């Protein structure tokens, strides 16, 4: 297995002014590490990878790595990625998004990307909070949990991102946490290899804001909570709804073989070109 030092040397941008902007104890680096290891084990060429993000803490991930990197506007990453993929299908498009990014401001783009089934991978950094702007509650903040804009506890109900992706038609959906680093790599690898729209929801920890506001401790305590809350899908299938309350179901949740958008569109091009003789005659 590749060492962290080799991973940094091979994939990180040395001319970018490090250190990164993430707080001490943040889980985002673990996700980036997992993604790089997945890429390395598949053996993808750096030139062929387009790494796209939106806005927020997760949005800063692309700047540190040596791929074709695109840091877009808040919530819109998947829409940018859609055009990019259609213009150059050879690109392996990976999109990093946060929970607010993908399911609040970008919720519409997210569900439509799921149903279109374009071959790309969406990695969602779900830390249950808006970290970059100071800890406001997000669409995944649990009912009753605190944020800087819900000091008395969240009265809204959270989205289940993976269930949303499944219902919207994503052909691959998986969930893991930043504690389960081996599973994280493995699921991202499977998602990249999947031919179609793949979602990997990663439950990550924000000790600086979520941890402090909810008094659940620092990074160590939050990782410990992830470890104790995670239940693999196979085990979860045998458990009751009461037993599963507050648990994080991990593993590959959905894997279905659906026609991929670019393949279908290329068929349209082929048929259209067959019907037209004389090429570009106007």
């Amino acid at each position, binding site marked *: 297995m590749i060492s962290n030092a080799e991973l940094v040397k091979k994939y990180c*941008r040395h*001319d*970018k*002014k490090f250190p990164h902007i993430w707080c001490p104890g943040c889980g985002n680096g673990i996700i980036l590490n997992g993604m790089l290891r997945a890429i390395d084990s598949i053996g993808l060429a*750096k*030139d*062929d990878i*387009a790494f*796209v993000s939106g806005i927020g803490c997760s949005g800063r991930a*692309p*700047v540190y790595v*040596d*791929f*074709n*990197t*695109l*840091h*877009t*506007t808040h919530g*819109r990453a998947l*829409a*940018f*990625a*859609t*055009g*990019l*993929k*259609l*213009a*150059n299908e*050879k*690109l392996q498009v990976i999109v990093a998004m946060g929970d607010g990014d993908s399911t609040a401001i970008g919720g*519409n*783009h997210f569900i*439509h990307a799921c149903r279109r089934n374009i071959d790309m991978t969406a990695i969602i950094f779900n830390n249950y909070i808006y970290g970059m702007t100071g800890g406001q509650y997000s669409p995944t903040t649990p009912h009753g949990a605190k944020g800087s804009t819900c000091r008395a506890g969240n009265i809204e109900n959270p989205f289940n991102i993976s269930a949303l992706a499944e219902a919207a038609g994503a052909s691959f959906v998986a969930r893991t946490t930043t504690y389960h680093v081996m599973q994280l790599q493995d699921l991202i690898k499977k998602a990249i290899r999947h031919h179609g729209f793949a979602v990997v929801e990663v439950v990550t920890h924000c000790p600086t804001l979520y941890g402090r506001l909810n008094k659940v401790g620092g990074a160590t305590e939050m990782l410990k909570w992830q470890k104790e809350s995670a239940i693999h899908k196979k085990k979860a299938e045998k458990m009751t709804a009461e037993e599963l309350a507050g648990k994080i179901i991990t593993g590959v949740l959905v894997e279905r073989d659906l026609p991929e958008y670019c393949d279908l*569109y290329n068929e*349209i*091009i082929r*048929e*259209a*070109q067959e*019907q*037209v003789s004389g090429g*570009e*005659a*106007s």
Partner: protein
Amino acid sequence: MSKKSPYRLMQGNEAAAEGAMAAGVRFFAGYPITPSTEIAEILSIRLPELGGKFIQMEDEIASIAAIIGASLGGAKALTATSGPGFSLMQENLGYACLTETPLVIVNVMRGGPSTGLPTSPSQGDVMQARWGTHGDHPIIVLCPSSVEETFHYAVKAVNLSEKYRNPVILLMDEVIGHMRARVELPPWSMVETVNRIKPNMPPEWYIPYERSSMGVSPMASFGEGYRYHVTGLVHDVKGFPTSKPREARENILGLFKKIERGFKEICLVDYIHMKDAQHAIVAYGCMVLSARSAIEQLRADGIKVGLIKLGTLWPFPRFALEHFLPQLKTILVPELNMGQIYREVVRVNAGRAVVEKINKINGEIISPDEIIKSMKGLAR
């Protein structure tokens, strides 16, 4: 093969689609909206025939995002919309300005504000096209005034966007978009096309936002081996976010400088009967049609009136006016808004001639008779 007539009956929206394809557009993303929908419908059929792609997105925010992505992927990309959709595009229009991504937005204007008058003509988006997105930025806005001109302006819009790495807005009005006219278009092989400058240095030497002497930097497509970073944050020449005042200043001023350098080439202006004119009508879009008709009659009645036809609205072609100001007594600006270009004319005029306006915002156009009446009153 049978000999084809050089003439075709065509709608303005169709001419926009045709011009874009002739200029090399091979990607379209859009969302249905009246009165621009024909452009999407036509391109959904034609682009696959050319090996290009059409996609209908979930909204206009996604539409412009997708064409930015496609442009970074190497395609010449277009979207088409109308007022409400154009409002939604403002966010990512700014992104395209700052990241210097070539693309063309066709905005077939309709009555506003809000849902407004969906199928009626308006020219209410002139200032929105200039300043709709937040922050200081230059923009190129072309405004055709006939069906045939729409074809040529669509070509020009694509070419300018590629040359200057800047979004270009083809600002049409409903009259031009839906009007059918006989046109004679050149074969595509005769259409001059411009492609963005590509880097020719080895990837390790490529500095993505380092400007050439022309003020524009070479643009690599994603996947060509030049791995670089694109961000909507203010960035240094390497494309990485910066908050250093000197680098921030250089980034934003660079956007303006490239457009200033190209000012003369970007500005499209035509003059009709201006040589001996003592009075001028400044018009654009469908108002040119009424103005031309009015001028013929006013001339027949002995009033020396001419037309300054603005093909480019932004950057504002101030020289077109300044050149004639010494000979002009009055300037009349008919617009289907409350006076958006009128204010620019007043600014450039700086108190020299008498500047008057005619405005309509009720979904009707200003007729030649209304212009004649107003001009006769002024010229008296």
